[in-house]
């Protein structure tokens, strides 16, 4: 009997060995063509990761940020954009902007995004003439000086601003008001970039989301409706008059620019199905429906266009709790290849 307990006791002790992460050797600066993928992870799990997809040998490395920097990115990375020789990552719940050297992917600076100790909850970043503009869910757009990498101004806009674009010397910010469900916001803020002040608010429809500018300087914004009786629509704004020009009659939940055209995706959350159509913003018409075979996707999460290699890349978030995939298509929408990446891939930076 005593031997039995001794045996159990020693088994328990033996199983106590510390599990230590093996130190990884960091990678040399990137010289191959490939895709850098921001994988958002899940809320409260601090598991935002960077995946590096090497297009030359087809390999994928899923902990690239950790390997280069010896630490984690944080919680819920929402956006990643390259500008100059740097890559900027917006980490929403950690409330930071991680600025990386584009070639080494080593962190140059981690910008703390808190205001009097309260997280600003940054969402998206876009760049214009040396400045980064960051939508923050606390109702502001922060202005980042890309020379000294510090926040130099906060512009008050609408509720829970989601995305932004530039046209005609002005900035257009989509105010989602998503945290006030069901009383969401329905405006786009127009901001004067020389004074950093809001000029006016344009009412576009409930829950504004993705927003882009076409080659003619017209602004297109998605009003996501209420996921029920009010449909999700694309709205065109005139950037001279700052007025709504047209609300398109088709379903749309996201816009991706592909050269002069738009890829318009739509996800039906009740049927859990998606579609991608090709839209021409000059003629303002859909030129090709069902541009991509959606059977390649379980859950279409992000859509990108690689202009150098002329590829369309969609991210698949699976069921949002299993690691995701990148699906690569030709410019004509023909499926080519799939890569297994991290959890909830949402943004891509292309390397030539």
């Amino acid at each position, binding site marked *: 009997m005593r031997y039995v307990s001794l045996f159990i006791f020693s088994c328990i002790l033996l*199983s106590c060995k510390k599990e230590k992460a093996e130190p990884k050797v960091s990678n040399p600066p990137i010289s191959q063509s490939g895709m850098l993928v921001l994988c958002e992870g899940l809320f409260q799990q601090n598991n935002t990761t960077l995946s590096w997809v090497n297009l030359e040998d087809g390999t994928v490395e899923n902990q690239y940020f950790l390997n280069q920097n010896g630490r984690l990115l944080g919680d819920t990375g929402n956006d990643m954009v390259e500008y100059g020789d740097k890559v900027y990552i917006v980490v929403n719940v950690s*409330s930071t902007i991680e600025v990386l050297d584009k070639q080494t992917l080593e962190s140059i600076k981690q910008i703390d995004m808190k205001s009097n100790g309260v997280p600003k909850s940054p969402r998206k970043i876009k760049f214009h003439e040396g400045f980064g503009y960051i939508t923050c869910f606390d109702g502001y757009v922060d202005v980042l000086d890309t020379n000294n990498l510090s926040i130099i101004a906060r512009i008050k806009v609408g509720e829970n601003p989601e995305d932004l674009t530039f046209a005609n010397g002005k900035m257009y910010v989509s105010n989602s008001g998503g945290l006030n469900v069901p009383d969401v916001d329905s405006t786009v803020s127009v901001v004067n970039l020389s004074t950093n002040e809001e000029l006016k608010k344009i009412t576009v429809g409930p829950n504004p989301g993705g927003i882009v500018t076409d080659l003619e300087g017209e602004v297109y914004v998605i009003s996501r409706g209420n996921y029920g009786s009010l449909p999700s629509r694309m709205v065109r704004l005139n950037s001279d008059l700052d007025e709504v020009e047209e609300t398109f009659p088709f379903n749309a939940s996201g816009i991706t620019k592909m050269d002069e055209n738009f890829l318009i995706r739509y996800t039906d959350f009740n049927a859990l199905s998606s579609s991608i159509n090709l839209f021409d913003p000059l003629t303002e018409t859909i030129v090709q429906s069902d541009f991509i075979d959606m059977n390649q996707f379980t859950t279409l999460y992000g859509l990108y266009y690689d202009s150098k290699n002329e590829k369309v890349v969609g991210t698949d978030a699976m069921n949002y709790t299993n690691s995701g995939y990148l699906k690569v298509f030709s410019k004509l929408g023909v499926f080519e290849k799939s890569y297994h990446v991290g959890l909830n891939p949402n943004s891509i930076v292309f390397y030539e």
Partner: protein
Amino acid sequence: MLKYLLLFIVFIKFCLLGFSQDTIKQLPEVSIVPVLEQKLKTLVNTQLISSKQIDVLQPEDIGVLLQKTSGTSVKSYGGLGGLKTVSVKGLNSQHTAFVQDGFLLQNAQTGQLNLGQIMVDNISEISLNEGAKQSFLLPVSAYTKGSLISISSKFNQFENKNTSASNFTVGVGSFGQLNTYLSSKYERNQFLLSSYLKYRKAEGDYPFEVSNGSQTLSENRMNNDLKDRYGGVTVAYQFKNKAEIRSITNFKEIQQGLPGAVILYNNASNQRLNVNQVNTKLDFTHFYKKLYYRIHSTYSKDKLNYIDPSFLNNSGGINTTYTNDFFDVAVSLQRKIKKIDTYGGIESKYNTLSFSTINSAVPERLTNLALIGGKYKFKSWTLESQVSGQAIQESNKNGEKAKDVFKVNPFFSLQRESLKPMKLTINAWYRNSFRMPTFNELYYNNIGNYSLNPEETNQFSLGVSMFPLSKKNGLKLVVNSFYNEVKNQILALPTKNLFVWSMQNIGKVKNYGFESRIEFSRVFKKDWKFNLSTNYTQQNALDISNSESPTFENQVAYMPKHSANFDVNISYKEIGLSSSLMRISKRYSLNENIVTNEVSGFTTLDLGFYFNHKMADDSALKLHFMVKNVLDVPYNYIRYFVMPGRNFLMTLSYAIR
């Protein structure tokens, strides 16, 4: 501090002398309860935790005790009063029924109880019961769930003598912890009055370490403070004709910070939770001719106020109150009919929930249950069978309502006992049960899905227990193997986007494994007592929802494959030493069993030293000193919900009879 404490004890004692003087002094029941005898009561499908064990372990709450049982896994989000739930044999926490003093404890909003808010000071015994129930005249609900945890309170039962007793306990611990507990009982001429009051506070600002790649984050837990109060009064009367009436009223009031997960680079945390609960229970038990019957009723009101001042909406945060009301009335019966022990009952339960937010659902649920069961003994064989029926009607004053449900569920058990050469019991049972979707799952703002079906389970168990009968040693071995399946498991899935999740009946899980227990106790040289209790559970909880999914046959999130306990207690006369070791193996934070989802296994060791001094006047002084997590191991049950490192607790308790 100590001086004041002693003064206070003297004061209490002085006050109590007033009414203890005139009672007929009697020696207390043999307080040296032979451990052997107590263990003999343990059966193959029941695990008992006695007040003596509770004393030795000095747990913060009932969750700590349930970790010590085998076949269970506790999920703890850390901190005093923090959320803790228990899963038995891989079934999630909503499949376990809780009964206290024969009354159902229930929360229809979440379908589970926060074990971190069930105090142990006034508990005399806890039993974890699977298979056939050992208890008597329970509400029907207690029989219809996957497993039952039954709690008996001290001072709520007649000892059938004129007596009065009081207990005062004060404890101080690390991270600003202070506990005070006061209870008293008065029994005379078939009349019983007892009451208790507990007050706790803690800062909870314990240091922790979290690894961040090759770096280590060392910080203190913030917004983890707690202040709570618990109290209750019991009044009971015994009639001359074997009948008894009892009324029990309890309240709790809790104010606490919700520290949330540790978020890298962001330590802002200011969410708060306030809980107010009152419940009152009434029962009448009568032994009439050959029939035992019990009529009982419970009413409880549970208010939960959640505040998140930093939520970025235009009203400047969230401040929502959820009010749960629960009322039940039931009759339980037991009678021997020829050779069959027959039992059964009927029960009506009413649950309602109201949200303080406008446009929210106002769900109501009426559940009617009936049960009949019988136990037949023939030589060494015992056959037991039950069948229960449940009719559940839902309504919602503000929107769509969930489906009504009618279900009939069976239970069978077969047991064989032999006494030579040792007491050997072999037991097999099968139970079919279900759990209703909770009010949150059905109606909560955007997340709820009113078309959910109940989650269904089939459980099979085969176990054996044996112990040689020896006067000197008590040795007991139990091995239980189990297999169960959960269909229509309710899981949250993000639908509209990552921020908006919705509930779906998409899960299917199979659990199998075994749990084993060895208990050994021995008294030697009269004054030395040695007690060992160890268990090991091996549990495969596999996701079998979809064979195409990358998680097919992967271990379900947060279910450890291996868990073990090793507890030793040695005492000599008035002093004792205890050691409690627990090991939980690696788990995964999501169903996908990949390295990035791994949550490391851990081992914790608690050591205790105690001194029990019995004074000449029958009062007793107890001093207990505990070091918890002696090895200062950083660990967590839930990823990034860090648990405290090494910490201390000193308790002084004074009992007067």
